């Protein structure tokens, strides 16, 4: 009997909605209670420093090139010892889509995403973050990483004398 099946289906639906009436709502009352975003949530972008306190950013323009909406711009300059740094660094958060491609492109892990999503402003010009707004005093998500310890150092020691380097092996003395 199809009619009995239909009535049963109706009552099943009614029973399910009845049960949901007594269920705890999933709503989070936003301004009063806030959701804890996950650590890898992609929101406000920061520029981090290396463990020694120096700026990580080398103004390589890769983040700017990776950015699909072109919201990152910078001017590179050369400091003492020929090391590059950003003379100014600017992110237009009115334009940013928080895709995280800049953070993925960054070779020195300088530019990183943070879970701070509350960056509303009354004036759209206030969303233009300059370098001093972006730069933080910490290392972000990779506390031990220092780009210059891995690369960017000229060869000053004879072969095998560098830090973390083994002395070359004399293949002729490796005879069994």
């Amino acid at each position, binding site marked *: 009997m199809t009619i009995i099946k239909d009535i049963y289906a*109706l009552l099943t*639906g*009614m029973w*399910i*909605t*009845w049960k*949901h*009436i*007594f*269920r*705890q*709502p*999933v*709503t989070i*009352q936003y301004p009063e209670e806030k959701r804890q975003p996950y650590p890898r949530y992609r929101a406000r972008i920061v520029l981090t420093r290396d463990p020694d306190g120096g700026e990580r950013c080398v103004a390589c323009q890769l983040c700017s090139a990776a950015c699909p909406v072109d919201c990152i711009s910078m001017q590179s300059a050369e400091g003492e010892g020929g090391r590059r740094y950003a003379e100014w660094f600017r992110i237009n958060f009115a334009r940013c889509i928080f895709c995280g491609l800049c953070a993925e492109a960054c070779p020195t892990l300088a530019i990183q995403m943070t879970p701070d999503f509350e960056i509303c402003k009354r004036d759209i010009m206030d969303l233009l973050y300059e370098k001093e707004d972006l730069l933080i005093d910490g290392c972000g998500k990779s506390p031990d990483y220092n780009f210059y310890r891995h690369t960017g150092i000229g060869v000053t020691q004879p072969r095998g004398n560098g830090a973390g380097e083994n002395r070359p092996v004399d293949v002729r003395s490796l005879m069994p």
Partner: protein
Amino acid sequence: MNYDPIDIALTLGKIALVFFVILTMAAYMVFAERKVLAWVQDRKGPNRVGPFGLLQPLADLIKLLTKEDFRPIGADKWLFYLAPAMAAIPAIMIFAVIPFGAPLTLFGHTVTLQVADLNVGLLLFMALSSIAVYGVALGGWASNSKYALLGSIRGLAQLISYELSMGLALVPVVMLARSFRLSDIVNAQSGCWFIVYQPLAFVIFLISIAAECKRIPFDLPEAEGELVAGFHTEYSGMRFGLFFVGEYINIIVLGGLAATFFLGGWHGPWLPPFVWFSGKVLAFAFLFIWVRGTLPRLRYDQLMHFGWKILTPLALINILVTGWWMVLRG
């Protein structure tokens, strides 16, 4: 009939009371609907205005009153302005014939808790609910808009079809009570409610009143997914508010009628009659909200098929069986 000033004052008092209670209840029905639907969907619902959001109807009213009163170009001015009233006023007027409590004795007068105890109360209800169809039809026609017109065409066809089965479902009630007077119908149920004798008529009546107040399985005249808002698409501000309030008054009134015809009106053990009546009305209101939170909208041909080919014949058979049974019982 003698016109005692106390009688007149009591009648005016009853009218004022009914108006006040019905309008307040309609406003809070909107609030209750939003709350219950929110609970069904695991949300919290309105809770910002006042404690638990209880002042939300007031905020809604202020918003509706201060909105622009818009009239589309090419709309029929008088019909456009008349239609919301045509939808809301008959709905309130029906409540005049519903007995909402046992007769009281005040100042040495017996006061029936009913605005007008007409001997054709049931027919008056049928007539007024047919007039309410004009609100839908004229509102859609006068708006000069395709969605409004489509909504009103659907509304007309639906309301007329379901009025038929609704009227036929009430015939056995009249046969059992042997009266069109609503107070007689209520008194006839002092022993046993008519739902016991007439479960089929009750179900038909329930489905028909859901269609009559355009509630969700039958909300084709409004059908916000298909017709924007149906017949009241072009209305704004308090004119839309009148349509809206009229709909909720309709729910209360039709719930009250269902309680009167099948659930014994204000009859019930232990509790005072008025509490019983309002409890039954609110139970019907809750049922409608619950159904709205559950069921999807019917397709138009399914709606007509269901009305004409299932409900109406069933109601007719029910009348025949009731008549046969009454003849056998003598």
